[in-house]
């Protein structure tokens, strides 16, 4: 059953040292208010799973700037100088995951699969140490599921049953990360009653959502 909580209560669900998954692409579709609350709560030693660390002062970057993250699995850090500096200093451990394969690995967990054979990164550092499958002359590498303790995502609108709709390209990693952890907390602009979202338009069904936080609350 979905509960409506405050941003502060949401931050309290993230234990120090835990694994978190945060949605968004260059801060578009990131749960900005939840990130603010998390920074304010001062949670440390996090393992972060995200597409990128966004910008130094926007989106997920604020967690990096606050030194809340000790390791991460991301596809890109090119837009965040603080992340690059912490990585160079070895303050921050990074596993670079190709963006599409990051989505696949999260979904592996979400859909109960043990792994996928991926054609991506064969012959590159991404393939190192991974099992392979060769089929019709094409090589694939075994990629394992990625999950978090808590997923923090952002939707435009939810009903009280947790059904979600997004806004344009702010959808990006949100629907997949909604299945990436046993606890999914969704920041939303608006919460409506059941029946006020057309069942045809629901992108993420409520069964994937545990908590809703109204932006700013």
């Amino acid at each position, binding site marked *: *059953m979905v509960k409506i909580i405050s941003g502060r209560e949401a931050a309290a669900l993230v234990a120090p040292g835990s694994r978190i998954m945060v949605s968004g692409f260059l801060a578009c579709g990131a749960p900005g208010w939840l990130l603010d609350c998390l920074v304010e709560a001062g949670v440390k030693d996090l393992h972060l799973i995200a597409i990128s660390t966004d910008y130094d002062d926007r989106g997920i970057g604020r967690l990096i700037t606050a030194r809340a993250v000790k390791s991460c699995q991301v596809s890109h850090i090119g837009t965040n100088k603080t992340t690059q500096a912490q990585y160079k200093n070895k303050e921050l451990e990074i596993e670079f995951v190709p963006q599409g394969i990051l989505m696949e690995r999260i979904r592996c967990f979400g859909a*109960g699969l043990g792994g996928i054979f991926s054609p991506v990164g064969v012959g590159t550092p991404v393939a190192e140490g991974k099992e392979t499958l060769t089929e019709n002359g094409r090589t694939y590498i075994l990629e394992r599921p990625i999950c978090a303790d808590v997923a923090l995502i952002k939707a435009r609108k939810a*009903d*009280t049953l947790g059904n979600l709709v997004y806004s344009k390209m702010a959808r990006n990693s949100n629907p997949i990360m909604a*299945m990436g952890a046993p606890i999914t907390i969704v920041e939303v602009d608006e919460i409506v009653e*059941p*029946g006020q979202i057309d069942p045809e338009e*629901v992108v993420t069904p409520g*069964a994937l959502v545990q908590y809703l936080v109204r932006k700013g609350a």
Partner: protein
Amino acid sequence: MLDRDAKKVLIGKRIAQELKDGDYVNLGIGLPVEVANHIPEGIRVFFQSENGILGAGPAPLPGQEDPDLINAGGGSITAIPGASYFDSFLSFSLIRGGHINMTVLGALQVDARGNIANWSIPGKLVPGIGGAMDLVVGAKQVVAAMEHTDKDGNPKILEACTLPLTGAGVVTLIVTDMAVIRVTPAGLRLCEVASWTTVDEVVAATGARLIIDGPVGTFA
């Protein structure tokens, strides 16, 4: 001995008592559908149908059927306020990803290790797998809803299934017209007996050893 309809009601009613407020539930075709008619007062559960809905509602009034709203057995359904439609791919992701609290399935055989067979009688009838294999692996609780014996009175609850399996070690609860049996690591534990019968009759009608290690309740 109860007639078929009375058995159906007995089984459906008893399984419905296992539901908790907010549960997401998938009911198989046939007998399991009856569960929806007995949801305890004060709790709200959400029915998923693997062909693409969360929030399936009861059958529509005659004449109001929508061909694009059917359950897994092909019967007409409605959608409750707050329902969502999705494709089969996401539907089975929800199932295998552990987001469905309970699935209720019919069974040809179940056994002492929680194995279930319900898709094939080789050489006779092979309706196929459908969504059952995904469901028994993915749902948190897997309830076998079945008549205790077959038409000829032979046990369907066995030490080991003889038919091709649908899932191995997956059943958590067996509810029949005679008994409620939990699958435990030690074997099958007899929890309740239907008020119309007796423990001895249940034991006699069961092809597997039943653990009776406490008071056996009744249900009706």
